[in-house]
């Protein structure tokens, strides 16, 4: 067994102003050259754990710290963060918060310059780091010209240029499309294998973690609750369920089949391990009369009508190209596509936050260009991608009541609506808390609560599940379903396709500013080639279903693990 590069010994940590411990009695050794996955529900302490590697916790945040963390033999409380940064590189969730320079090469050189490394060596290291993350040739580009995945790879390049022994990733893929996420995982794995850098990665991406990690540690309420290989952790569905974690769909499919007394030799956690098991599974063929439910087609009068919409940004970027679509009252629509496909640009036209360069957007027959944003805000609620952009009050309660107070609501009515909305989002106890002290998932819920109190007709959720654990994401989508059942029109933008079969009826797939596909969800999810054109990956259950179709061409196009299990039960 290799030597440990990092040792957590009886580590407990309490943030200032907090009565709870963010980490409690953590004992863990991270071995040199391994890829350690870190999973846990929102609020489990994953970010705190990551920040403890280079001493940001507790040196920057203060608070109470117990035990010790040593990295390469250095105690993180006895050495300044700047010294620890030579050994520990960090890549955070949002690359935008890490990029500060005006060119890609300056970005990578920044830390090296601060460490007073010689010019010739800086040039050499910049070249090495950019090659390692496949950004060679991008040296002179402005970081903002890069895609989400490229930005995150640039942040990785800046971190590895320092030649750290250990690279910590804190949810580096949550804002990326599936292809971007896989890029980041593949880059991390390549650095791990080829350069021997030890990787610690916190992520909710179960499928990728099962593929790339050597060991996975489960953190819950600040404690290490399990540690093992991906096979051990991801096949233990009960453990994952207890911790509100999502297993890879192949694992949950075969685990549930096993529960139905279908002989399964082992629960696979990767697609490649599942495929050999499908031949045996197909022998069962108990679903010959399996009927697929088709959602009722909504052909009502269009509530939102987009005609020949083109949008060109002032810098000349053509973000939308002759888009036409109708959305009827009461529809639940998923808009999917790669980062930069034009999804957010499209929905901003619904709110008149952007105006068409050509074409029109009509709400109930009225051109949104001629409607005030405030008027549209009554009808259409918009939950933006980054909740922090919509939060500006000092307490959660004030945030929720803000719009109602400004609209002249009776204080009692405003209070009652605010409480109802907070309870619906599971935020009952935090109305007096500063919103920015909450975890990102909870901040998103605060924003959704603030929208719900307005009781709009249409609610747009722009990447609402970003940064959420499985339970948090499902809670938000359950709320969207409740609202849909109340007759609201719901539009959800997300990369997380696996979450959507239980909710969306219709899917609009966008790529490079155009609509590639506008179909019911089953047709859309099985159009894997079209999804691939916009860097989307179909859920594993869809891929399993397609693999089964290769064996038995009568196999129906199934969408979820539950449907596959039902088919064989």
């Amino acid at each position, binding site marked *: 067994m290799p030597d440990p590069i990092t040792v957590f010994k009886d580590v*407990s940590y309490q943030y*200032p102003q907090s009565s709870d411990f963010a980490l409690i009695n953590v004992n863990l050794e991270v071995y040199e050259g391994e890829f350690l996955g870190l999973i846990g529900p929102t609020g489990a302490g994953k970010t705190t754990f990551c920040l403890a590697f280079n001493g940001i916790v507790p040196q*920057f945040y203060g608070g109470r710290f*117990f*035990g010790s963390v040593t990295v390469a033999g250095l105690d993180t409380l006895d050495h300044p963060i700047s010294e620890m940064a030579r050994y520990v590189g960090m890549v955070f969730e949002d690359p935008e918060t890490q990029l500060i320079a005006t060119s890609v090469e300056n970005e990578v050189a920044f830390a090296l310059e601060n460490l007073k490394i010689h010019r010739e060596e800086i040039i050499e290291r910049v070249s090495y780091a950019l090659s390692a993350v496949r950004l060679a040739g991008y040296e002179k580009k402005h970081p903002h010209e890069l895609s989400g995945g490229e930005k995150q790879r640039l942040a990785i390049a800046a971190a590895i240029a320092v030649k750290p022994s250990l690279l910590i990733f804190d949810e580096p893929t949550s804002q990326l499309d599936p292809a971007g996420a896989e890029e980041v995982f593949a880059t991390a794995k390549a650095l791990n294998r080829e350069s021997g850098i030890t990787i610690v990665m916190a992520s909710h991406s179960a499928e990728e973690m099962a593929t790339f990690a050597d060991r996975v540690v489960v953190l819950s309420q*600040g404690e290490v609750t399990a540690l093992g290989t991906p096979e051990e952790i991801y096949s233990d569905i009960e453990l994952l369920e207890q911790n509100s974690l999502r297993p890879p769909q192949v694992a949950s499919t075969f685990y549930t089949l096993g529960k139905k007394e279908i002989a399964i030799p082992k629960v696979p956690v990767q697609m490649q391990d599942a495929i050999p098991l499908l031949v045996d599974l197909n022998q069962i063929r108990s679903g010959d009369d399996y009927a697929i439910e088709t959602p009722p087609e909504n052909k009502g009068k269009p509530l939102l009508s987009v005609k020949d919409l083109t949008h060109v940004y002032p810098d000349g970027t053509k973000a939308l190209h002759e888009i036409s679509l109708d959305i009827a009252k009461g529809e639940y629509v998923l808009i999917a596509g790669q980062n930069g496909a034009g999804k957010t640009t499209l929905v901003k036209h619904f709110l008149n936050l952007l105006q068409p360069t050509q074409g029109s957007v009509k709400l109930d027959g009225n051109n949104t260009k001629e409607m005030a944003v405030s008027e549209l805000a009554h009808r259409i609620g918009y939950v933006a991608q980054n909740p922090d952009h919509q939060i500006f009050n000092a307490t959660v309660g004030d945030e929720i009541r803000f719009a109602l107070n400004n609209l002249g609501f009776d204080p009692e009515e405003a209070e009652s609506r605010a409480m109802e909305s907070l309870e619906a989002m599971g935020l009952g106890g935090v109305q007096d808390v*500063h919103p920015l002290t909450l975890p990102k998932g909870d901040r998103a819920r605060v924003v959704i609560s603030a929208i719900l109190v307005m009781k709009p007709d249409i609610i747009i959720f722009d990447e609402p599940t970003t940064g959420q654990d499985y339970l948090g994401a499902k809670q938000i989508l359950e709320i969207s379903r409740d609202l849909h059942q109340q007759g609201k029109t719901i539009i959800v933008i997300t990369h997380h396709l696996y979450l959507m079969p239980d909710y969306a009826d219709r899917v609009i797939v966008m790529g490079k500013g155009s609509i590639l596909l506008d179909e019911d969800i089953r047709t859309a999810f099985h159009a894997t080639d079209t999804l691939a054109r916009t860097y989307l990956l179909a859920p594993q259950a869809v891929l399993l279903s397609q693999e089964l179709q290769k064996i038995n061409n009568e196999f129906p196009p199934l969408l979820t693990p539950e449907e596959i299990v039902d088919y064989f039960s």
Partner: protein
Amino acid sequence: MAEKIPVGEERKVEFLGGAAIDGAPITYIIVLAAVVVALSFFPMSVILAIGGSFPMSQGILGLVGWVLGPIAGAVSSGIGATIGVFLAPHTAGPIPLLRIWGSLVTSFAAGTMVLGQKRRSWWFWAWLYALLSFLYLVGRALFINGVGLWPVFANTFIDWSALILFALPTRTLFAKWINSKQWGLVIAGLGLGTWMAYGITHASITAIMYHMFNWPEEVWITLIPLIPFENLMRALVGIVIGGGVIAGLRALGLVKPEHAIY
């Protein structure tokens, strides 16, 4: 989480490394210096005697000292004011160097309002400097320039009131209020603390200015209502901005600079 008891030994937590001045992270110093610069653009009033306006940033100089401590606070205010006089000359006054010096002294004086035992005598040096300046100002006005006692007494209200408040236990009381969990007390502490900290500076700067300009008794009389009004404005700025900054810092729970009193 709360029920579990840590088994590890509790460690002393401190911010290590060169990225701090006197226990205050450089980032804090830079951010507050930037705020001082930004507020330098906003003129608050017209000072008739010297023919210029003073910047809104003077309202937060006390706050800078309470957040960063006397040394880092003085550094931050000094940097902010230095950049401010170049970028916003309309609020720099006739002698920009004095504007910088005044900023530095105010934050230093505010930073000496300590709560514990450490540095508990530092206030005296700021006070002594202000007292000597005040005595020179008053003496020159009364005995050299022949200004009447009443105009001098009324005109220097903010100076002698600050000297008294700073010498008495009120100095520590205001610091306790700023540290309080009750927002009413925090606001009172910020307002009175700003009044007092800038009053200390006002005496010292005015002494230098008076030495140079020797304005006549008519100007002393004209300024009687204006000077306290201007200091009241500084106190209000201190309350509004200071209240927000302290609320934010407390809520976010970031590491406290070593000599912070919020």
